[in-house]
C-alpha cells in the first residue's frame, strides 16, 4: 500500500524578504525555520534548511524530496522540484482548513488569491498586477510616512471611527495622498485605517474576480496584521480563517507537494 510508506519531505519558500522552510513527516509539521534573504538567497535557504533539520533531529539524507516555491525559486538549486506559489497556497489552505475554497496570500511584495478544490488542487488564480500597493511593503512604506512602527499600524487603525479615502492604485500615489491627509491634520488612526481599507479594496476585488467561495483562508506574513485582517473581514462581510503561523503556508504547501512526489517515485 502506497499510503503506508513513511515520508519525510521539505518545502522551501523563497520569498522576497525571507526564506521559510517546513519539514513534514507523514503530513505532520515537525520543524519550521526562517531566514532573511539578504544578498545570498541560496545561502540563506541552506541555512534555514539546516536549522529546521537540526530542530527535528534529522540529516539531509533523511529528506526524501525537497520542493521549492516562491519568487526566488530558481535560487534554491538544491531542491528536487518546484511548484508555483499559487499551487503551494492551494495545498496549504486545504491542509490547514479542509473546507477552504479560496486562499488569499499576502506577502511582502505579492498579493494573490487562489481558488481550489477539496484536494487542494488550484482551479483558478489572480495576481496583483505590477504593484506592491496590495502587499506588505505598502504597510511598511505607509508606516514610515506616519512615523509609527509597522507592527503598531494594525492596533492604531482599530482606534479609528471612520476612514478617509486614499488612492491605492500605486504606492507612490498613496503616499502623496497620505501626506495630504497629514497636512489636513487627520488623526493618525484614521489614516492608518484608510491605508488598510485601500489595501483590502484591491485584495477584495481580486477575490471577487474569482467569485466569492467560502471558506476563505488568509495566509502570508500580512495575515498577522490585525488592522489588515479586520479591514478585510469588514469588506468581504464574512469570516476569514487564518492558520497559526500564516507566513509558513507556502513552505508547508511545497512540503506537501514534495511528499506526494516522493511517494510517487517509490
Amino acid at each position, binding site marked *: 500500500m502506497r499510503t503506508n510508506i513513511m515520508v519525510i519531505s521539505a518545502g522551501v519558500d523563497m520569498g522576497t524578504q525571507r526564506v521559510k522552510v517546513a519539514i513534514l513527516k507523514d503530513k505532520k509539521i515537525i520543524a519550521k525555520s526562517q531566514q532573511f534573504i539578504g544578498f545570498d538567497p541560496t545561502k540563506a535557504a541552506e541555512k534555514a534548511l539546516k536549522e529546521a533539520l537540526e530542530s527535528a533531529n534529522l540529516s539531509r539524507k533523511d529528506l526524501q524530496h525537497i520542493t521549492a516555491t516562491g519568487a526566488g525559486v530558481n535560487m534554491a538549486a538544491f531542491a528536487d522540484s518546484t511548484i508555483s506559489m499559487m499551487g503551494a497556497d492551494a495545498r496549504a489552505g486545504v491542509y490547514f482548513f479542509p473546507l477552504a475554497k479560496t486562499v488569499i496570500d499576502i506577502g511582502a511584495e505579492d498579493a494573490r488569491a487562489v481558488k481550489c478544490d477539496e484536494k487542494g488542487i*488550484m482551479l483558478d488564480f489572480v495576481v496583483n498586477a505590477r504593484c506592491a500597493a496590495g502587499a506588505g511593503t505598502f504597510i511598511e512604506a505607509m508606516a514610515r510616512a506616519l512615523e509609527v512602527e509597522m507592527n503598531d499600524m494594525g492596533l492604531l487603525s482599530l482606534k479609528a471611527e471612520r476612514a478617509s479615502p486614499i488612492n491605492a492604485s500605486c504606492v507612490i500615489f498613496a503616499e502623496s495622498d497620505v501626506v495630504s491627509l497629514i497636512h489636513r491634520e487627520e488623526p493618525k488612526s484614521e489614516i492608518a485605517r484608510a491605508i488598510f481599507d485601500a489595501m483590502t479594496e484591491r485584495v477584495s476585488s481580486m477575490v471577487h474576480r474569482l467569485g466569492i467561495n467560502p471558506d476563505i483562508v488568509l495566509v502570508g506574513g500580512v495575515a498577522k496584521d490585525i488592522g489588515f485582517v479586520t479591514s478585510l473581514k469588514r469588506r468581504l462581510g464574512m469570516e476569514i480563517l487564518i492558520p497559526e503561523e500564516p507566513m509558513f503556508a507556502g513552505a508547508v504547501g511545497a512540503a506537501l507537494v514534495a511528499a506526494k512526489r516522493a511517494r510517487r517515485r517509490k
Partner: protein
Amino acid sequence: MASKIETEKKYIPDMAQKEIDQLNKSIKSASIKVIEDNIERMKKSWKNRPKIMEYFDEISNFFGRRKKEIRKQKKDGKKIIGYSCIFAPIELILAAEAIPVRIGSGWYDTAKLGDRIMPVEICPVIRSTVGAKMVNLSPYLELTDAIVIPLTCDGRTKLSEILSDYKPIWHMNPPRVKDDPHTLKMWKEEMLLIKEKIENLTGNKITRKKLKAAIETLQQATKAFRRLQDLRKGPPVINGRDAMLVNQTSLWDNIERWTQKVNELCDELEKRVEQKQYSSFPETPRVMVTGTPMLWPDSWKVPNLIEESIPQGVIVVDEQCSGDRILYDPVGVDEWTMSDMLDAISERYLMACTCPCFTSEHGNEDRINWIIDRIKEYKVDGVIYYVVRGCILYAMEYARIKKVLDNLGIPVYYLDTEYTREDVGQMKTRIEAFLEMLEARIDV
C-alpha cells in the same frame, strides 16, 4: 477641408538626423539579436526541427533576403502597399501587381520612442509602430508607397494621422455591426474606393482575369495554411511558436513561394505523424492564445515562456490577427464575374473577421463561436487571454469570453503585459502556475 494652420509635420517632433541614425543603429542591432535569440530558443525547444523551417527563419529577418527582394522590385517599378491590419484586401493589391506588406510593429524598443508623442496608456503596438517610423527602423514601412489603414480601433484611427506625416494614407472605414442591412453595402463601397486608389497608384487596371488569379493565389495559401492547422489538431508535431512564425511570415513574404514552402513543411510533418515523431510529449497541456496580436519579434516573449515553461505547454491554436486568423477564410466566389468577385472579397473581409471592434445584439458572436469551435477541434486544455495594456477592445471583451469558457469548463487566464522585457519574471510565474493547473487537471 484643411485646418487653418498647417505645419509640415503634424505630430512628429523635430529630431536631429544624427539622433535618428544613432537610434536606428542601436535598435536595429538589438532587434537582430532578438530575432536570432528567438530562433535559437525555438530550435532548442524542438530537437528535430525540420530543415525547411530555416526558410521561414530567413524570411523572419526584417533586414535580410525579403527586404532586398522588395527593394529590388520597387526599383523595377513595382508599388509597395503597406497595411496596418488584416481588413486590407490583399487580393486587390496583388491583382494590381503591387506588393502587400503588413506594417504593425512588434518592437519593444521603439515603443519608448512613441512615448515622445503619446502617453504610455496608449496601446504599445501603436506607439511602437510610430517609434519605428521615427527612426526609419522598419524596412517594409520605409519602402511603402501608400498605407491602407482600416479604422478598426481608436489606436489605428489616430495612427493613420500620425503616419500621414510621412506617407500617403488610405483609410478604410469598416462598420462595427455586421448584420445591419446597409453595412455590407457600405463596406463594398469602401472596397471600390480602395480598388480605385490602388489602380491609380500602380497605373494597373484590376481586370477580371488578374483578380481571379489573385483570388486563386490566396485560396492556395489558405489551403496550405489549413493543411498546417490540421496537423496541429493531433498530438504535437510542430511547436506553436514555429507554426505562429510560419503564419506570420505570410504577412510580408511572396505569397506563392510561401504557399509552396508551407506545403513542403506539411509533407515532412505528415510523415512525422505516421512515425509518431512528436515535437513534445503527447500529454503536454494544449494551449490556445487569444487577444492582442503577438507581433514578431519581441512579442514572442509570451509564446517563448509558454513553450519553455516547466511544466511545458504547447500552443495548438491562436485566435489572433497575427496568426491563425490571417489566412483562415478563403474568398468564396460563385461566378467569376467582376461584380461577384468584389462581392465575395467584401464579404470575406467583413463577415469572416472576428476582431473585437465588432458588436451586435449578441455581442461579438463570431469571435465567441470561433473560440468555442477551435477549443473543440484542437482539444484545447486552457486559454491564455493575452492583452497588452491599452488594448481596450480585447480587454473589455474578456469578461464575456470568460463566462463562456467557464460554462465550457475551460480554464482561462488573463495575461496583461506591456511592450517591455522587464516583466518576464512575473509573466513566467503566472504562466507556470497556469500550466501547472492544466497539467493537474489532465492528471486527474
